[in-house]
């Protein structure tokens, strides 16, 4: 039974990673109401940007990481202007937007693979000499502590700004009804553009942290996206706190499931959880 603290630590780390992706996805979904595949590849975009700036150009991480996050946000914003806004203008259905996002996802992922090859790399410089923290019998590295703290901080920050700031109110208005928001005088295109920037930046942050903790490869986006989406849906799509809760639930289910059953069933458990929720409680844990 003394491996339970370590399992709990593993679950929290996994949950926080998924939460970063889920929270950004929920934000984007609540504003635009379509399943955005590119959310996943932006994690890879930011991670590779940090790779180029850090390892390639030798920039200090304190500079490379914010640049990577901003770059991901910028790419997300450009995708909105270039791909989604024109489609929205023509009243494209959510299906069309989904397919467009899938196309953009595939193209960007292939571009990254062509530029950097598919070799698995890591962003971390101090492997084997990282600071380790011990909590009871559980061991956790410094990067993992950062992931957990950042995950919670981002969620809290986002929930707070959606509730209290004017921008947050406008986003919630658009999420309720885009047409009426326009009538009321909100510049929906500009706000949605900013939403894309923020959610892409958060996805980028997730990609960078995963890059430091394990590593980067061009296909990392899909895996993160799928787990983040499961977390978001289980928690209640559109709700920021729900995304956090759902992701942690997913993290715990996967790791305790691996303990009791086997590692080979990890993905099956994750998607099984999703199916159970979709059948019995489709609105998720928290209603948005």
């Amino acid at each position, binding site marked *: 039974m003394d491996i339970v603290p370590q399992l709990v630590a593993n679950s929290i*780390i996994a949950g926080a990673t998924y939460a970063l992706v889920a929270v950004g996805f929920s934000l984007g979904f609540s504003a635009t109401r379509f399943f955005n595949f590119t959310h996943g590849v932006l994690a890879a975009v930011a991670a590779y940007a940090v790779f180029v700036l850090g390892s390639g150009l030798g920039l200090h991480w304190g500079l490379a990481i914010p640049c990577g996050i901003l770059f991901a946000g910028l790419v997300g914003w450009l995708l909105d202007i270039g791909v989604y806004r024109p489609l929205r203008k023509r009243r494209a259905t959510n299906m069309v937007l989904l397919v467009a996002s899938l196309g953009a996802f595939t193209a960007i992922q292939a571009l990254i693979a062509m530029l950097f090859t598919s*070799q698995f790399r*890591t962003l971390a410089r101090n492997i*084997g000499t990282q600071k380790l923290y011990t909590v009871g019998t559980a061991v956790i590295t410094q990067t993992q502590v950062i992931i957990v703290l950042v995950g919670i901080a981002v969620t809290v920050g986002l929930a707070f700004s959606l509730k209290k700031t004017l921008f947050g109110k406008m986003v919630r208005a658009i999420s309720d009804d885009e047409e009426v928001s326009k009538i009321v005088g909100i510049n929906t295109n500009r706000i949605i553009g900013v939403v894309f920037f923020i959610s892409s930046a958060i996805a980028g942050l997730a990609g960078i942290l995963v890059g430091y903790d394990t590593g980067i*490869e061009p296909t990392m986006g899909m895996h993160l996206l799928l787990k983040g989406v499961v977390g978001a849906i289980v928690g209640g799509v559109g709700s920021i706190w729900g995304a956090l809760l759902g992701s942690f639930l997913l993290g715990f289910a996967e790791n305790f499931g691996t303990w009791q059953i086997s*590692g080979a069933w990890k993905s099956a458990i994750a998607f099984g959880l999703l199916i159970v929720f979709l059948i019995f409680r489709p609105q998720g844990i928290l209603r948005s």
Partner: protein
Amino acid sequence: MNNTIKVIVGIVIVALVVWGVMSTRDTAKAPESAQNEASEVTVGLLSPLTGDVASYGESVKHGVELAKAALGADTVTVVYEDTQCDPAEAANAANKLISIDKAVAIVGDLCSSATLAAAPIAEQNSVVMISPASTSPDMTEAGEYIYRTIPSDALQGTFGAQLVYSRGHRRLAVLYINDDYGTGFDQVLKTAFPALGGEIVGSEAVDRDSTDVRTQITKIKSANPDAIYLISNSTAISVSALRQINELGLEAEIFASEGLKSADITEGAKEAAEGLVVSSVSSGTQEFVAQYRATYGEDPGPFAAQAYDAFAVIAKAVAQGAKTGVEIKAYLDTVTFDGASGLIEFDTFGDISGNYDVYVVLNGEFTQNN
């Protein structure tokens, strides 16, 4: 945008895509000036030219190219197909090579799962298939036309078990990738190690491309092994596992299968790979290594020598006048020669025997330690 501009942009994009596809088609076709003789034989190459294990695909491709140049196989056309080590892609590519390119022999695939998916297609069409890297014991029964120039894991598993035992360990845990290769190797270890007197204290599976192996390692840690065998053909899993074993403070000697004998691993896992013991098939005779270095400027990668031999044996069959899969198979069943990776002589199942070398990672380099 008005309609004309849209049409023009559409045509430009389609033209760009078509041009991109045509210019990257990696076919080594004989020049048009040579007569398109009916005696020209087509051989296909199935390998992961892109994807997680693209570095293996590249070294195999080099091995084949080297063999083609060395043996002067001008009547043999090689068609390259990228399978990304995915079983579905391998099956599609095999179909394409056989029905469209009329290949009579195929070198490939690398990953056992992919080869096993393509094997029935080759078997049905009487096309010879020689894998330079698929080691799953299941390949032995895969078919009459299925051969390999690398020994089965039934042998490497036994060798691995003996290696672990001879270094004084009695409690072994296995961390393996959840595909034909991993499960096959794991099964062999489960019989071989106890037979020597040791104990398998834990055995955990990992899905391909997972980077979070923490809980599997936590389970293994609680079983107190003194050695761990890491069986993986995915760089993502290998690097992540090595790092996380180090982070979680699991004190045990780590052994690994030949897929980990690659610079990707030492670069990715850095200090976490120190002391890693890898069992590996031969990287080639001195002659082959020198030839490879002279042509490509670096040491041969994993499976290059085996790929060289796979192509060489087909080229030799063609030089003797074989034109169809049936004729090539007849030659393979009786051939015996000293290839770049050792003695090439197939048994009744299309397998070969082999020796293994032991490498240890010291200061970030693989040093031989037999």
